[in-house]
C-alpha cells in the first residue's frame, strides 16, 4: 500500500497521472536496485512516500543518498517512492528481499497501485543469470528488453531504431521439441511474474535486463542504467556523439564499504 510521506499535506506531490514508474526486480547481483540507486541519486529525486507492505523483509537505516551532514539522518525503510515531476518520473526503490511465498501478493498489490495511481507505464530493471544463457543469447550485447503488447503499440518501432535486442524465448523442452518456446528469466526474481501479469492486465510495461553473475555488480548497474538512458534520456551525455554517460551518474554515499570493513592492523 502506498503511504505518502506528508499525510494531510497537498496531494499534488502524489499525483502520478501519466508518469513513468521505474522500479527494480530484486534479482541476481541486485543490478536493478543498484541502477535505481544511481537514478535517484543523480536526479536528486525527492522522497514522496513509502510502499508499506508485509511482503518484504523489514530494514531501516539512515539516508542512503546523503550528500551532507544535514540530510544524513533521515530514516529510510525497505520500500520507498521518489518522484521527479519535471521528468514525469516516479521511482519505487526496494531495499530488501521478499519473504517466502509473498511474491504473488506483492505483485498483485503493486499492479493494483500502478492502476490506481494512473501511472502511464512501468519500467522494470532486472537481471538474469549469465551462466544460464542459451547459444543464441551468448551473442552480442548482454542487454535485453521486453515489452507488453500494450506498450509495444505505444512505442512502436523505437526499440528497432535504438538497435535493441528483445529477450529471446527459449525452448520449453530443449532437444525434444524446439518449436514450443517459453519466456525464461532465471535469477530474475519477480520479473517474469510481473511481466506476464502486466501482459494479461493490459498494463504498459517494459523490462530492461542484463545477463550477469554475482560479484561486484557496480559495472552491471552502470551498463543497465545507460541502457535505460538511451531510451528515456534521463540525463544528457556531455559529448554530442557519444552515448556513454557512465561518468555522469552519481554514486550514492551508501555504496561505501561494499566489500567489508578495514583489516585489523595486527595482521601486518
Amino acid at each position, binding site marked *: 500500500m502506498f*503511504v505518502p510521506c506528508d*499525510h494531510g499535506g497537498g496531494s499534488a506531490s502524489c499525483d502520478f497521472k501519466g508518469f513513468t514508474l521505474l522500479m527494480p*526486480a*530484486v*534479482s*541476481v*547481483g*541486485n543490478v536493478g536496485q543498484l541502477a535505481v540507486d544511481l537514478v535517484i541519486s543523480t536526479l536528486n529525486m525527492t522522497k514522496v512516500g*513509502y510502499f*508499506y507492505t*508485509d511482503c518484504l*523483509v*523489514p*530494514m*531501516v*537505516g*539512515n*539516508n*542512503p543518498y*546523503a550528500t551532507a551532514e544535514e540530510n*544524513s*539522518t*533521515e*530514516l529510510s*525503510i*525497505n520500500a520507498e517512492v521518489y518522484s521527479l515531476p519535471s521528468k514525469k518520473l516516479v521511482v519505487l526503490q526496494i531495499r*530488501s*528481499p*521478499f*519473504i*517466502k*511465498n*509473498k*511474491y*504473488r501478493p506483492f505483485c498483485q498489490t503493486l499492479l493494483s497501485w500502478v492502476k490506481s495511481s494512473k501511472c502511464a507505464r512501468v519500467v522494470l530493471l532486472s537481471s538474469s*543469470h549469465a551462466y544460464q544463457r542459451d547459444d543464441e543469447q551468448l551473442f552480442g550485447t548482454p542487454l535485453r528488453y521486453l515489452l507488453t503488447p500494450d506498450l509495444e503499440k505505444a512505442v512502436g518501432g523505437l526499440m528497432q531504431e535504438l538497435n535493441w535486442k528483445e529477450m529471446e524465448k527459449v525452448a520449453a523442452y530443449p532437444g525434444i521439441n524446439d518449436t514450443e518456446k517459453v519466456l525464461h528469466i*532465471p*535469477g*530474475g*526474481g*519477480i520479473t517474469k511474474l510481473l511481466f506476464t501479469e502486466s501482459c494479461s492486465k493490459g498494463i504498459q510495461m517494459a523490462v530492461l535486463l542484463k545477463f550477469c553473475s*554475482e560479484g561486484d555488480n557496480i559495472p552491471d548497474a552502470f551498463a543497465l542504467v545507460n541502457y535505460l538512458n538511451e531510451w528515456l534520456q534521463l540525463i544528457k551525455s556531455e559529448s554530442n556523439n557519444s552515448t556513454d554517460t557512465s561518468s555522469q551518474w552519481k554514486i550514492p*554515499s*551508501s*555504496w*561505501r*564499504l*561494499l566489500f*567489508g*570493513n*578495514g*583489516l*585489523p*592492523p*595486527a595482521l601486518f
Partner: protein
Amino acid sequence: MATFFGEVVVAPSRAGVDDEEWAEEAREETPEDREIRRELEKKREIDVLWTLKSGASLESSAGQPFVCSKFIVAIGHNAAAFLSSFILDSVCWEVVGVVKLWNEWCRTSNTTNVLPTDSFCLFYRLISDPTVLLCQCSCYVAEDQQFQWLEKVFGCMQKEGLQVTILSTCPVADYKTQESTLTLPAPFLKALKTKEFKEQICCPLLEQPNIVRDLPAAVLSYCQVWQIPAVLYQCYTDGIKLDTVTVEAFRPLLSCKILNSLVKDVSESTKILKKLLTTNEIHNNIYI
C-alpha cells in the same frame, strides 16, 4: 566464493527468488498443498492476549484503542534484562498482556508466569500511570510474523501522543566501518530515529551504510510510515548470550528523558542482574 584469505564462504544468493522455490510455485497447487499451507499459516499466526486482572479492561468495552503515551520495547535477552534490572519491578508494574507465537526457533504460550531464561513476549503497565506501556520480547519473531506483530500490538493503541522507544542488540561483526571491528570498543550504542522524534538522543546516530533488520526495524519502519515519534537504541556487542557488560551498555539511556522518570532504586539493580545471570548460567551448564 573464495575470499582474499582463501577460505570458502557460501554467499547467500542475491537472485531474489530461489529457483527451487520458483519451481515449487510453478507447480500447480493441489488441494492438499493448499490445506497444508493453510494449516501452517494458522499455526504461525500470532496472538496478542491482553490479560488485565484489575477490573478495568485495557481495551475499553467496544474494542476502542487504549491511550498510550510511552511505549518501550526491549527486544532480545540483553535488552529485556536491562529493563528487568533497572526499570521493572512487581510493585509499580503489572503484567497486562502476552504474545503467543509459534515458529521454527521458538514457541511461547499464553502464560504470564515466565522464567527469565524462557523465551517470551510480555507487556507491562505502570500502575501509577497506565498510559506507560513496556514490552519485553526475548523470543524470536520470524520474518513473516513481524508484520502481524506490528498490526496486532499497535492496532490496540491510540497513535496520538504516543512515543516509542526500542532497545535491541546485534553482533558487532555486523557493524560496517572503515576500521577493523576488532579495534572497536564493544559494546557500544547507536541510535536511529523517525522524522517526528525531536528529543535529545543520548548516543551517536547509526551511520550509513549500516542498517538494522528484524523486529526492531519493523517497529521503527511502522513508526516512520505512520508518523509516530520513535527512537531505536541498538547495542553492538561481541557477546552472544546474556552478559553484564552488554546490559550495562544500555545504562546511559537511564538519563534520557523517556526512561529517567521510570528508573527504580539502582542499588538493587546490580543484585537483580547478577541473579538473572546466575539463573542463565545454570541453564547453560551441560553437566546438569
